[in-house]
């Protein structure tokens, strides 16, 4: 746990960047510091690895004042990812990632092994990327290397200062998803600075909303969205808070069990039903499309009345409900099928179910 106790940072020209912050950042979770530019979020972050020294107050890591540690040891035990990646251009990807292990004088074979593992972890093919140079990487690849470098010596704490700020929106979402996966695996204590509210909601376990050097609200994302403490937080979250809440819930929790038709069997499996449409599966229970049960002639085979569903229209259990809703609006349907990564049909998610969810939230 990282504790801030009455931390203030005042500069020589008497501007106050951080104004008496006291918060506790829980271990093994991802805490986002968010706010408009100049709110003091980056300064707060940089005080943890003592790049900025506070004017007053105390920062404790697991109960110990960070000033009690040797400054170099402290920094080597905290991973650091900065805004513009800051890769060393004159070193290969491998040497960049190996920076801290080398400072810690690890054995060569151990460093080698670690670098290869980390490249794989961040989704870069180890053999071909190890010897590349920063200038040969795309923006997204450089960010991945930046994350791998921060993880190099397996530090318990990682500080990230707008790590995905410099890449295009598409790549950013992809990097966020992959980073969320890595975090689910590693459970690091992460302090993450951003000004992108969607990014915060997507990744955070806890969010601290900052303004003018103070923390206005510090809570789990759901509570910040549902119960903003003041107008600024309310406005900062945007007018689409209801939609944003949906990006915190996953399709898996709202799958409805429905009757299906199997194309390997005849019409009599359907029997008497009030349903107009039914999802159709093959003999391996893989979803292949839907059948208009109401209008189709029972003379024709099920297969000939089938409307196929494209693979990208099928939702996965780890898709967000926001994504499900967006797809429904796009395709003009009221229900979408859910299947696992092998294509096995799991059920459907419907518009009425989503409405139920948002209504219950209000109460």
């Amino acid at each position: 746990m990282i504790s801030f106790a009455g931390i203030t940072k005042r500069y020589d020209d008497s501007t106050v960047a951080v104004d008496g912050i006291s918060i506790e950042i829980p271990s093994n979770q991802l805490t986002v510091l968010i706010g408009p530019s100049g709110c003091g979020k980056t300064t707060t972050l940089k005080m943890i690895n003592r790049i900025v020294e506070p004017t007053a107050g105390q920062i404790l890591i697991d109960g110990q004042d960070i000033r009690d540690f040797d400054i170099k040891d402290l920094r080597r035990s905290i991973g650091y990812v900065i805004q513009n990646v800051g890769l060393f251009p004159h070193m290969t990807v491998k040497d960049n990632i190996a920076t801290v292990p080398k400072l810690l004088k690890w054995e060569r074979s151990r460093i080698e092994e670690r670098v290869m593992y980390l490249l794989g972890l961040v989704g870069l093919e180890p053999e071909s990327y190890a010897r590349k140079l920063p200038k040969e990487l795309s923006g997204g690849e450089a960010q991945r290397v930046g994350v791998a470098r921060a993880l190099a010596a397996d530090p318990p704490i990682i500080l990230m200062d707008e790590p995905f700020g410099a890449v295009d929106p598409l790549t950013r979402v992809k990097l966020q998803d992959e980073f969320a996966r890595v975090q689910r695996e590693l459970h690091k204590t992460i302090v993450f600075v951003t000004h992108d509210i969607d990014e915060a909601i997507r990744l955070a376990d806890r969010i601290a909303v900052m303004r003018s050097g103070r923390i206005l609200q510090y809570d789990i994302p759901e509570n910040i969205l549902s119960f903003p403490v003041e107008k600024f937080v309310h406005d900062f979250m945007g007018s689409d808070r209801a939609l944003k809440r949906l990006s915190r819930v996953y399709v898996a929790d709202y799958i409805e069990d429905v009757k299906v038709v199997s194309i390997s069997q005849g019409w009599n499996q359907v029997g008497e039903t009030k349903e107009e449409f039914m999802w159709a599966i093959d003999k391996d229970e893989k979803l292949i499309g839907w059948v208009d049960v109401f209008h189709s002639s029972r003379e024709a085979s099920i297969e000939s009345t089938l409307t196929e569903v494209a693979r990208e229209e099928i939702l996965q259990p780890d898709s967000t409900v926001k994504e499900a809703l967006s797809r429904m609006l796009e395709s003009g349907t009221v229900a979408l099928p859910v299947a696992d990564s092998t294509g096995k049909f799991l059920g459907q998610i419907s518009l009425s179910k989503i409405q139920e969810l948002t209504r219950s939230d209000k109460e």
Partner: protein
Amino acid sequence: MRPLRLRNLDMMTLTGLVVMSISISIPGFLSVRETRISAGLPVKLLDVSPAGFLFFVLLGTAIFSLSLTRHSFYTGLLGGLVPVAGFFVTGLRATAIAAEVGPFSRVSPAAGLWLLVFSGYVLVFGARKKLKDRRELAALLVLVPISLTLLMLVSGHLNGLSIMKEFANRRTRFFEETARHLIIAGGAVFFGSLIGIPLGILAKRSNRVEKPVFAFVNFMQTIPSVALFGLLIAPLSYLSRSIPFLRQLGISGIGWTPAMIALVLYSLLPITRNTYASLKTIPHDTIEAGIGMGMSRLQILSKIEIPMALPVVLAGVRTAAIQAVGNTTMAALIGAGGLGVFVFQGLGQAAMDLVLLGALPIVALALIVDSFMQLLIALLTPRGLVMEEGK
């Protein structure tokens, strides 16, 4: 075999070939004089050696065809052979031509041979530009013709030329002055780096130092070298007269002291400026990443700042070195010695070949220093910092 395309022909190669054809056809390829200082008579290449003329026609054709295939390295290599062949032909025939005119007659290169050398330089330079990403090959293009020419000089092949006769009369002196020239120029660059690099670092670290430092080094660069030598004579001779210790060290108003001081001052601008610029271009993020990962101040310097800044700093040292080789010539005027001695003696006696005995080695030294520094920079530039074409 790569395809021949006319659009592969570049302006540099074309210029080189045109200059080459002019040089082998104009009347004055060599010049013959009855005595060391009498007026010269022009001799055509066709009269010097018909076989040589034919050879150059063939060589020109070969270079033209190669340049159409984009074999830049081989185009440059043959281009470099143009002056070498020019000297070779001259060396073969010089003694015989001189004998035809009289017992004290002298043979010297005339406009034709110099143009031929120039055409070779243009051809090599054009090829080097295209070999930007292969700096080792580019350096080779200069080193090959120079070493072949040196080989001819050392082997005595060119002894029939007037300039070599001047050399033969001053053999010991020539080597002494060459050594002195190198020591003065090298010393100036050494001390210039010793002062200039820290000055650049200081200017980067502190805004207060930056302005006066650059005002000073820029101002120094604007003073003509002769004027600076002159300005130093009075204060230095005063110091030497009033402080015996300095006199014992050999410091006086004339000689190597003012020369060294002036040349060090000149070398400051390129070295200080490049050191400053190289540090300025290292992004703050890169340094902060290093600090954040727990590097010490010394590790930041040795692992990040020095490797990233070195190529640009060395480029400054290269400029300073080439400049120093040239400026040292003027040092002969205040009794510091160096190859300038022959230049000024020759001017005094109206003996052009003596002037050349000083001037040609200076040009050669400048080219050698340039190539050596380029090679050094290429070897010391980390792969990640090598700029690609068009970036």
